[in-house]
């Protein structure tokens, strides 16, 4: 009996995202039809096999998404909503770019120092929200939204101060990272010059560490217990305030790494064109992947895939590639709805199972969804 129960559980877990994908597919198609665009052509392009270059791009942008989503997921496991990953990674990437640009240390020591700076700055920026919550009871949702906007203004201001002006260019950016401190990529295909970020391994390491700490350590147990029931956590001897601050710091620290593959593998400087909005994509992907390290990886690849495959739509079909943002947003909304529906259904199943296993229906009370 356990076997079949286990099977239902797995089926339900897979069923929800599949359901969400189908729903997102239908809704997007509906939008395309209403707008009079070529539905078949759009899906034909998006669902085709990527080019060699496309694979590389997908892996690269999934790497960045992944880090962002893990940062968000750390908060989620504690029932903390870190909307501020967006601000945290930008402040952190700026700080790292400045440190790396100065080149105080040689070669990879410089890289390591810059990454350390990124982690510390990201953690500190998130820590403000954590401290406000434990000392003043300010909801981290509101404070991180505010901190995002403050980060935007602060980075713009500091960038103006720290920028080096290229003559003939109106792009403001920090000093370039010295050649020796850059992290080179590796080739996936010989046919294209594009390379996969070397720091893809950083994402893998972060994902593994996340999985290990959350699931295998007592600290991870404390974190999950607090997220599951704050009151029960207090009674069990967990210092919840400390956990709130620590997990905000960890989440912010992870957020600090989001910009690193871009900084050391692509841009080599922080400028006004540095990719923005990664934090919000991270929220979406963490939700999609249910905070599970493998689920998040799949979600990140899916988002990156949609981004990459929609790029040529404008040229090929005269359809704005922004259509996939509708798809992505719809996936998030439908996936959380699907998870909620499945959760309720699963709980009902479990209650039935408990009742029938005991053959003692009338004593079962107080088990509400």
């Amino acid at each position, binding site marked *: 009996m356990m076997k079949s129960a286990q099977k239902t559980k797995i089926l339900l877990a897979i069923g929800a995202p599949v359901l969400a994908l189908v729903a997102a597919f239908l809704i997007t198609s509906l939008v395309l039809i209403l*707008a009079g665009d070529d539905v078949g052509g759009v899906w034909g392009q998006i669902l085709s096999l990527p080019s060699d270059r496309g694979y590389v791009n997908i892996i690269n942008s999934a790497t960045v998404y992944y880090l962002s989503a893990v940062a968000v997921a750390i908060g989620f496991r504690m029932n903390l909503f870190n909307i501020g990953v967006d601000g945290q990674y930008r402040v952190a990437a700026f700080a790292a770019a400045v440190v790396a640009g100065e080149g105080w240390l040689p070669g990879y020591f410089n890289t390591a120092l810059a990454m350390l700076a990124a982690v510390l700055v990201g953690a500190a920026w998130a820590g403000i929200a954590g401290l406000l919550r434990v000392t*003043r009871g*300010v909801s981290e949702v509101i404070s991180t939204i505010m901190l995002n906007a403050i980060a935007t203004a602060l980075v713009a*201001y500091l960038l*103006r101060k720290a920028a080096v002006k290229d003559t003939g260019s109106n792009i403001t950016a920090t000093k370039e990272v010295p050649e020796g401190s850059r992290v080179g990529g590796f080739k996936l295909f010989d046919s294209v010059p594009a390379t996969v970020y070397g720091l893809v391994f950083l994402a893998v390491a972060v994902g593994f560490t996340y999985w290990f700490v959350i699931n295998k350590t007592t600290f991870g147990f404390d974190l999950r217990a607090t997220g599951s029931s704050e009151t029960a956590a207090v009674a069990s001897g967990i210092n919840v305030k400390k956990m709130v601050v620590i997990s905000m710091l960890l989440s912010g620290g992870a957020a600090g790494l989001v910009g690193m593959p871009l900084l050391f593998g692509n841009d080599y400087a922080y400028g006004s064109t540095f990719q923005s909005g990664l934090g919000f994509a991270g929220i979406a992907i963490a939700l999609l992947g249910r905070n599970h390290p493998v689920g998040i990886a799949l979600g990140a690849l899916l988002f990156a895939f949609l981004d990459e495959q929609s790029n040529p739509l404008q040229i090929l079909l005269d359809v704005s590639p922004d259509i996939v943002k509708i798809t992505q947003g719809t996936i998030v909304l439908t996936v*959380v709805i699907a998870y909620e529906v499945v959760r309720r259904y699963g709980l009902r199943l479990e209650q039935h199972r408990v009742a029938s296993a005991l053959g003692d229906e009338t004593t079962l009370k107080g088990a509400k969804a």
Partner: protein
Amino acid sequence: MSVVTDAVAAVPAAAKKLSYGWIMIWLAVGLVLFSALRIVTGADDLDSSGTLRATLVAAIPIGLAGLGGLWAERAGIVNIGLEGMMILGTFGAGFFGYFVDPWVGVLGAIALGAIGGLIHAVATVTFGVDHIVSGVAINIISLGAVQYLAALAFTGEPGGGQTQSPTIKSLPSFTLGFLSDPLSDLEQKHWFVVSDLAAIARALVTNLSVLTILCLLLFVLTWWSLWRTSFGLRLRSCGESPAAAESLGVNVIRYKFTAVVISGGFAGLAGGFLALVASSTFRDGQTGGRGYIGLAAMIFGNWRPGGLLAGAGLFGYTDTLRLRGGGETIHGLLLLVAVGLILMAIWQLRKGRRVAGPVTGAIGVVIGLWYFFSDSIPEDLTGMTPYVTTLLVLALASQRLRMPAADGKPYRKGSAG
């Protein structure tokens, strides 16, 4: 049980309401202070009629977004999808305003915002999805949808393009010339208090859009319908204690649903105002985070329309000074903030608050020193004002804030008892 959220637990009789008389007295004090500040610093643009009119135009979208937040949160639904619904509103105004008529644009903005609200309502009320999650998703969807639709609608139109609409015809506006001109003369004299009053009066009779007046009326209408009608009582009860409301036969689901759709309509109108009055085109990225500022204004205003209006005014004012190249003007404001903080510190110390008092005082002194040792504030930093203010209000005055008791909590039918 001591859990983290205890810090915001109710302190009895928090947030006493200001009486009408006191509000008038404080307004008068503020006016005198402002006038004095203008004369001391010589920053005449601090309260010129141009600044004030621009403030009004900047404050209304923030205030409308805040009203959207207010309607939803009074019914217990947190709506951080306001930004997305505003974006939908800008497009609605641009599309219907350009292709049909600016008034239809207003309706289009409200309708598209309300559709965003409807999605939020279905997700949070019907399916019990976390309110924040749904809000984030709506922000993503709206942004993508509007970018996609704008490219479809405006590419190839004269003056339009992928990311912006052609110019939309203006909504009617009016100027009371017989009042405006003499007031202008009076304002130019730069007399203490008198000229300031003239500037305020002139801002209200010159080049005022009809939509501006309608939007101001919506604040009164919101207050009246939420606090003076049985509809409003039922709606608020859903945010305070849905179980109690349900136990008395109130259809909680319906009220929450209605509130969130109305909330979306307000946010849509806020976006429409940006496209139709504050500028005369739809542009991608036009909202610039004003949905979030609206939310901040609502918190600043303690979930009440009057306070929200004050918050929107404050945030609109700082935004205006920034846009009017007011590095120096805002620099003048530093002095006011410094004096205000030091006065507040003295008051806190007399109330026996040994930690908050010195902290406030120290911040005041630092800002005062900043005033004396600088000439101007960088424009980038002034953009932070609404956000920093909100964080400070939350951090320093959280005990006085009173959000609806069941705000953000999931509700399912049959929870009475």
